[in-house]
């Protein structure tokens, strides 16, 4: 039986645990998505390199290599579970001696790297499709005004691509908030791990998790609603 009374008691004694967990969940998610965007931009540009037959052969080979790495990265990271990636990266890095003095900092750092790598793979595809969705005539027109490729990107293509990308980017953030729960498996003190700690301290195994579920739900549900409101505003805006 689930008892509200038990939940109340747990909350009264352990609320600081939950808040700390939620705090860690949120900052890990924010930083991971920010890193993911940067990574995604780099990977997307790698995938979108155009290789011209009349270029220097070394340059062509380098471009092929960059393209291959970008594609391989995206495919591998999207086709394996986040939990496995976290395990491989965390234990791989620490067994190779890549750690800080403080074991909590080490855990946080490698978890962050793992989640950022994972979300970078997804975001690179979001960014790539956002850029490809801008009609090709926009690039042609920009080039005809005399802009070079990068000026055209900066002034014409990317501002329009951002509109396509933003909603999906926000959704990725929401997904990451939920997915960071797997970090509990290596002992990172995010929300799910804190719930586990409370459960093992109290020998109560349902209510502590329900509290965590409620906290996840409130955050994710609110954010999702905000995002869809924001999306409606974007689609209503005059330039689209």
């Amino acid at each position, binding site marked *: 039986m689930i008892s509200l009374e038990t939940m109340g008691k747990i909350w009264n004694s352990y609320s600081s645990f939950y808040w700390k967990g939620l705090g860690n969940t949120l900052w890990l998610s924010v930083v991971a998505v920010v890193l993911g965007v940067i990574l995604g931009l780099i990977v997307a540009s790698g995938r979108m390199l155009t290789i011209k037959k009349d270029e220097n052969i070394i340059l062509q080979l380098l471009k092929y290599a960059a393209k291959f790495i970008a594609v391989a990265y995206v495919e591998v990271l999207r086709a394996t579970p986040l939990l496995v990636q976290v395990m491989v990266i965390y234990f791989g890095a620490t067994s190779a001696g890549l750690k800080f003095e403080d074991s909590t900092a080490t855990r946080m750092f490698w978890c962050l790297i793992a989640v950022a790598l994972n979300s970078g793979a997804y975001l690179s595809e979001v960014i790539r499709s956002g850029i490809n969705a801008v009609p090709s005539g926009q690039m042609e*027109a920009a080039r005809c005004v*005399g802009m070079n490729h990068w000026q055209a990107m900066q002034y014409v293509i990317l501002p*329009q691509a951002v509109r396509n990308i933003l909603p999906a980017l926000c959704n990725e953030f929401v997904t990451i908030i939920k997915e960071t729960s797997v970090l509990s498996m290596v002992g990172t003190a995010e929300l799910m791990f804190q719930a586990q700690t409370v459960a093992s301290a109290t020998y109560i195994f349902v209510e502590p998790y329900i509290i965590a579920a409620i906290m996840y739900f409130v955050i994710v549900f609110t954010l999702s609603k905000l995002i869809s409101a924001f999306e409606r505003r974007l689609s209503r805006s005059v330039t689209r």
Partner: protein
Amino acid sequence: MSQDKKEVIIQVKNLKKQFKHIEVLKGIDIEIRKGEVVAVIGPSGSGKSTFLRCLNLLEQPTSGQIIFEGSDLTDKRTNINQLRQKMGMVFQSFNLFANMTVLKNLTIGPMKIKGMKQPEAEKLALSLLQRVGLGDRGDAYPIQMSGGQQQRVAIARALAMQPDVMLFDEPTSALDPEMVSEVLDVMKQLAAEHMTMVVVTHEMGFAREVADRVIFIDQGVIQEEGTPEEFFGNPKNQRLKDFLSKVL
């Protein structure tokens, strides 16, 4: 003929363009002189748009030469970005920058490419918008305008770079019939001001009335060229005769 005395601004020599296994242009030779209005007509798929898009290297020619104001565009060392500033282009689908207001569409080139100061660029933009009859629409976004208005803005945007040549790729083909004339009027006005223009078009009336020379491209080659009078009045090429009998 007075045209022959004017300086050649674009010279095309044996231009060929191949897409995969299809040879779209099979050797085009033409000279375009300063102040001349050249209309390019032909059936769809004949290569006339590809020809135009080769002139400013939106399509990379497979072989041949395009010499614009003394520079060979097909030479790798030529700075194409610089030369494109002198060749305005107007597209069938307008292609106004969707993320900018009309005014910004006109000022972005002069400001970012030519380094013109904002007040100066805006003054120029406004005078061009007035010229195409849209002096009061600077704050609008492209999507808020009709096709005809967008196309007039597109012409003004190209003019804002103060080009030496204007290339038009079927500028009225995507327009509702009642909007065609407002765009053609702007083009006629440009022709009257002696702008050098190359116009790919299906508007035979425009070609006949405004062009100094009409070119018929079919099957990747220029089948016939001449003044509008001889071209429409006394066509010699059999393909051109067939084409004209269908469209006129």
